């Protein structure tokens, strides 16, 4: 794995994903059309039926696109660029996802299955929010401190898992699943405490983080696009460097690939378990921090949404490689942003996006299926990452 970051990325490698995406959109479209009463009413006249179906799915997807990338309707005189608002939304959504995805990917490379990104995300968000609204510090410093606080708490929450596994052998899958629930309930509790209540209000919404702790906007006040996405990209490069260019990453990958040989070579597997989970936790924690400091600003019980689990999907979709994870997250960010608009414009239930996401991952993970559908015997494909099951 000592290829430079970009060599693992070629246009040719994008053909399959593109086809996989098209395929998924097709099935999603079928679902939209066939569950649309206006379409079903025309079932008796084939032609009209197909027209209606096409229209139904077409409109939904047009809205999806407009909500995700570019919507001319938003352009105002002398402000054509406003049409790119949706793109900004997509990137805003992608930033935390990239970071959380990297968390899962890194742990995976070290032979650990981190289902706990959700909980680590929550603690990261909690810490960042607290530092963000409670303390007063100079601009910049405040931001850094808040982000670090989130990273630290996330890394503690994650490192705990590694430590438990190293010490007692408790399986990380069990522990992380349980810790996710614990983190959620802890969040619900702390939001009710006076420290986290807005003075004079009693609903569980933490005060907004102060301006001094917010990630700077990148494209002016018309867009929510903030430095979070840059942080995410930077961290992706960092993770790539850590995994492929450092002795620590070497240990991670070695222990992840073959514990016995690693032990024999003097690599301390307990060290790998603990530190890998700590780093993974830190990344997920940072994701939470970026979410709170970048676009969410106020801590709520739903702050983590489904990031921690989407993170697993994008990491696996990205074959546990940094670049792949970034690309996968961008795709998911766009789908997420588009979905809201799609529902607003065409009343298509937002959940269809889940179906599309699932199908995309499925087809990309199964190149042979796609190839056989599109008759592409020749196309060479990188083998997926091998699952080692539970024994790591």
């Amino acid at each position, binding site marked *: 794995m000592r290829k430079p970051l970009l060599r693992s990325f070629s246009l040719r490698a994008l053909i399959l994903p593109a086809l996989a995406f098209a395929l998924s959109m097709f099935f999603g479209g079928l679902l939209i059309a066939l569950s649309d009463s206006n379409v079903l009413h025309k079932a008796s006249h084939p032609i009209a039926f197909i027209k209606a179906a096409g229209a139904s799915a077409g409109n939904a997807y047009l809205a999806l696109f407009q909500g995700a990338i570019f919507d001319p309707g938003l352009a105002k005189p002398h402000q054509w660029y406003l049409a790119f608002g949706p793109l900004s939304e997509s990137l805003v959504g992608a930033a935390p996802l990239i970071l959380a995805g990297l968390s899962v990917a890194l742990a995976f490379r070290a032979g650990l299955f981190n289902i706990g990104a959700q909980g680590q995300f929550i603690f990261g968000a909690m810490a960042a929010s607290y530092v963000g609204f409670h303390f007063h510090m100079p601009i910049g410093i405040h931001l850094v401190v808040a982000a670090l606080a989130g990273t630290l708490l996330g890394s503690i929450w994650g490192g705990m898992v590694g430590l438990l596994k190293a010490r007692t*052998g408790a399986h990380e899958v*069990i522990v992380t699943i349980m810790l996710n629930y614990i983190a959620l309930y802890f969040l*619900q509790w702390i939001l009710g405490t006076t420290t986290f209540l807005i003075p004079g209000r009693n609903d569980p919404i933490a005060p907004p983080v102060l301006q001094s702790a917010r990630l700077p906007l990148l494209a002016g006040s018309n867009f929510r696009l903030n430095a979070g996405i840059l942080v995410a990209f930077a961290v992706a490069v960092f993770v790539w460097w850590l995994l492929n260019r450092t002795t620590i990453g070497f240990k991670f990958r070695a222990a992840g690939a073959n514990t016995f040989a690693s032990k024999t070579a003097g690599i301390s597997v307990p060290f790998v378990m603990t530190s890998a989970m700590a780093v993974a936790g830190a990344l997920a924690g940072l994701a939470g921090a970026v979410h709170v400091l970048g676009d969410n600003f106020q801590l709520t019980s739903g702050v983590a949404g489904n990031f921690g689990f989407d993170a697993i999907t994008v990491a696996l979709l990205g074959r546990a490689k940094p670049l792949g994870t970034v690309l996968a997250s961008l795709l998911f960010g766009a789908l997420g942003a588009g979905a809201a608009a799609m529902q607003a414009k065409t009343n298509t239930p937002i959940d269809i996006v889940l179906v599309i996401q699932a199908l995309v991952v499925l087809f990309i*993970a199964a190149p042979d299926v796609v190839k056989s559908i599109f008759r592409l015997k020749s196309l060479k494909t990188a083998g997926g990452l091998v*699952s*080692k099951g539970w*024994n790591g």
Partner: protein
Amino acid sequence: MKNLSAAELRRRRGVYTMAILSLLAFIGFGLIPASGRNVTYGFILDKEWILIHQWVIGAKSASQLFAGIAMLGSIVAYMQFRARKTIRVASAITSAGLLMSFLSWAAAGKFIPFTGLLQGGLLLSVPLIFGSMAGVMSERSGVVNIAIEGELLAGAFASGVIASLTHSTTWGLLIAPFAGAMISFLLALFAIKYSIDQIILGFVLNVLVYGLTDFLYKRLLIPYQSTWNSGPTLQPLKIPVLWKVPILGPIFFDQTIIVYIMYLAVIFIHLSLFKTKWGLRTRAVGEHPTAADSVGINVNRLRFKNVIIAGMIAGFGGAYFTVGAVGSFGKEMTAGEGFIALAAMIFGRWSPWGAVGASLLFGFADNLQGVLSITGTPIPSQFMLMAPYIATIIAVSGFVGRVRAPAADGAPYKRGGNA
């Protein structure tokens, strides 16, 4: 005794933990409290034979009594351990004693419907047991099954809708397994035929089912609720005589058909796994597929079959959520129990009874926290809700320790690959 084996060290850690806990319980629950108030245990749910109706006892003395039992238990356990004998029974007694000691303390001045407490625990673990059985089925033959959640949800959806459309719980029950099987068919197809990473697959299938059910729920079940989502529910069937057995009767033998089928399923899976030709082959395929292949066993066909069956089990378990409990389907009503089931399977070391034990532990802990938060505790509600999850972590790290999955679990089998 120097140089203990890892297993022994773990067991010793267990014994010491129990001993210390018992002592703490005796002091903390038995001696310190201001005393005075009574705790009342209720032992009757229905018109079963009444052994004792209620048992009223001083909270303090009860705590002492049970903590005492726990201490005895841990001493016995230690002696057993020295004698290198199994400490299962002793530890069971100790844990029970500890629990009762704690309960008597926590419920001072309160009424604890003991039978109901246990019955509730059982009910809460029903989906977990079905789920973990599905896990065991497929993972024993070497296919990692993270799709349990999806299989449960699919089963719940299908059985709910069908029961509603046909006004028949029977049809609901009959359809559920096939809904689960549809999901596990995808799992089998992609994992075995296209040898795709099974962990990715499991996750994605869950997402897929979430998406599909949410979508259809909004598009069909809400608008046309009266026809699509108003299913009937199963009534409990009392097993003649048995259900009257004091305490146990109403817990185990006054349940819906789903629960009875669960009993049979667990026993059947255990027996077939360890006593039959099918079981031998299944385990062989999960441990050393090449060896199985070299004696003429069709590895992938067997795996395919088992994964499908696993899906049917989980799917049937899903029916518990709808026809087994509330009738109508609710959005994402499995609420992550498929993952708890997954944990229970690992916790139970891929053995049917182990998984059942883990599921019961979780279900019971969950219901205990429910009952205690009703009778009233000073502990904030969110921390009460955490209890079962914390308990699981303690159990896993304190007593279970390192677990070993079937050797070939998660590894697709292709002939001629490197042996």
